[in-house]
C-alpha cells in the first residue's frame, strides 16, 4: 500500500488535481472507494463547480456528507451557493455596523462583489478550511478539485494571506504602540462624534481589530500547516498520455514545489494498450510513448502509475474498487 495515501499523523488529506477531462473525479472516487474498502473512514468532497462526482458514484449528492458504502461518505460543494452565503453573512455583518452608510447603497456593492476577482478562490479556501477544521472526524479526506489553475491558486492562497496578515499585524502593532505612548504622556484621548463619546483601543488585548487579525492568521496558519505537511497532505496529479496535460502537470509540479505542497503521485490515465499494432493508431501510439518517456524523465522522485484505457467507461462501485486497488497497491513503475 502506498504510505502517502493513508493516514500517518492524524488524518490524511489528498488533493487530486489535473487538467479538465483527464479523469480527476474517477481517480479520486477510486482512491476513496479503495480506502474505504480497506477500513479507512473516508470523506470525498468535490470542489469542482462542474460536479460529476455524483455521476461517477451514481448517487445524488449535496453539501452534507452522504453515506455511500461502509466507511465512505461523499459530498459536493455548491460553490455558487457558498459564495452567496458567504457574501450574505458579510453583508449582514457590515450593515449592522455601518448603518449610517446606507446612502452608499451597500446592496448594490455586494451584488458586484460576488463577481469580484478572487472571490471564488477565497470561498473555496474557506470551504476547505471548514472541512479540515473537522478533519479528525475522518481518517482520509479526498478533495476532487476544479481544473488545475483554480486549485493551484487556492493552494497558494494561505501563504499569500499569511504575508498580508503579518504586514497588517505589523502596522496595527505600531499604531497601538504609538497610542499607548501618547496616552502615557498626555492621558487618554477621548473622541466625540455625533454626541457619542468614545476612546480608541490602545492595548493588543482590547483591540478588536488586532484580535480579528490574529484569529484570522491562526486559522490560515492551520490550513497552511496541514497542506504543507507531507505526513498529512499528498497531492495526486492526474494526466493523460498527451502533450498538453503533460505541460500542465509540469507547471503544477513547479508551483506546488514553490508553495511547499507535496506532490507525491502522478496517475497517467487512459493509456492505450494494444495487443497488436493498428496502423490507424500508429502515430497516436508513438506520441503516447514519447509522453510516457518524458514523464519518467521529468518527474524523477515522484511515483508514476499508468492506468490503461478501458473498453468500457469505468463507472459504478465495482469499477471504482478495481481502479482503487490499482492506484493504492499495484501498477507502479
Amino acid at each position: 500500500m502506498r504510505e502517502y495515501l493513508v493516514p500517518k499523523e492524524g488524518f490524511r488529506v489528498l488533493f487530486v488535481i489535473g487538467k479538465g477531462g483527464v479523469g480527476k473525479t474517477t481517480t479520486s472516487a477510486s482512491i476513496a472507494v479503495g480506502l474505504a474498502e480497506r477500513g479507512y473512514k473516508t470523506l470525498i468532497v468535490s470542489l469542482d463547480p462542474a460536479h460529476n462526482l455524483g455521476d461517477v458514484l451514481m448517487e445524488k449528492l449535496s453539501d452534507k456528507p452522504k453515506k455511500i458504502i461502509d466507511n465512505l461518505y461523499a459530498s459536493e460543494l455548491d460553490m455558487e451557493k457558498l459564495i452567496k452565503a458567504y457574501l450574505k453573512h458579510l453583508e449582514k455583518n457590515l450593515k449592522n455596523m455601518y448603518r449610517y452608510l446606507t446612502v452608499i447603497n451597500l446592496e448594490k456593492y455586494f451584488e458586484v462583489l460576488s463577481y469580484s476577482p478572487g472571490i471564488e478562490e477565497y470561498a473555496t479556501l474557506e470551504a476547505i478550511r471548514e472541512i479540515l477544521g473537522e478533519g479528525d472526524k475522518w481518517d482520509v479526506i479526498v478533495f476532487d478539485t476544479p481544473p488545475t489553475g483554480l486549485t493551484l491558486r487556492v493552494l497558494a492562497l494561505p501563504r499569500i494571506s499569511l504575508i498580508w496578515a503579518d504586514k497588517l499585524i505589523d502596522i496595527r502593532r505600531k499604531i497601538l504602540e504609538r497610542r499607548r505612548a501618547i496616552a502615557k504622556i498626555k492621558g487618554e484621548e477621548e473622541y466625540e462624534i455625533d454626541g457619542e463619546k468614545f476612546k480608541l483601543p490602545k492595548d493588543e488585548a482590547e483591540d478588536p481589530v488586532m484580535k480579528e487579525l490574529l484569529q484570522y492568521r491562526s486559522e490560515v496558519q492551520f490550513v497552511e500547516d496541514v497542506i504543507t505537511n507531507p505526513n498529512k497532505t499528498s497531492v495526486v496529479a492526474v494526466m493523460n498520455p498527451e502533450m498538453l496535460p503533460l505541460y500542465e502537470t509540469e507547471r503544477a509540479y513547479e508551483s506546488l514545489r514553490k508553495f511547499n505542497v507535496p506532490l507525491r503521485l502522478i496517475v497517467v490515465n487512459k493509456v492505450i494498450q494494444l495487443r497488436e499494432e493498428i496502423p490507424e493508431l500508429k502515430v497516436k501510439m508513438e506520441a503516447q510513448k514519447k509522453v510516457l518517456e518524458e514523464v519518467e524523465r521529468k518527474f524523477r522522485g515522484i511515483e508514476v502509475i499508468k492506468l490503461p484505457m478501458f473498453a468500457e467507461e469505468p463507472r459504478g462501485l465495482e469499477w471504482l474498487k478495481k481502479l482503487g486497488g490499482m492506484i493504492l497497491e499495484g501498477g507502479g513503475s
Partner: protein
Amino acid sequence: MQKIKDFLRGFGEAFRHQSTEFIEFELRELENVFALILMGSFIGIPSPPTTLVMRLMPHMVKEIRVMESRAVNLDDVFAEVAGMFDID
C-alpha cells in the same frame, strides 16, 4: 502662587505637546495607511484577502469615523508638516 502654578502647568503642557507632536503625526499617518490598505479595492490598489478585509471592517467603524472627522477639520497638511519641522 496660583499664577505661578498655572504658568508652570502651561509650560509642562507645551512640553508634552511638543514631545508627542511627532508621534501623533506618525500615528495618524499609520492609521491612514492601515485604513487605506483595507479599502484598497476602492481606489485600485491591490487589497488584502477579501475575507480578511470583510472581517476587519466591522471593527473599524469608530476609527474610520475619527478619521472622517479629522479629514473635515484638516485644511492645510503642508502647513502642518512645515510647522512640525520649524519651517517658516
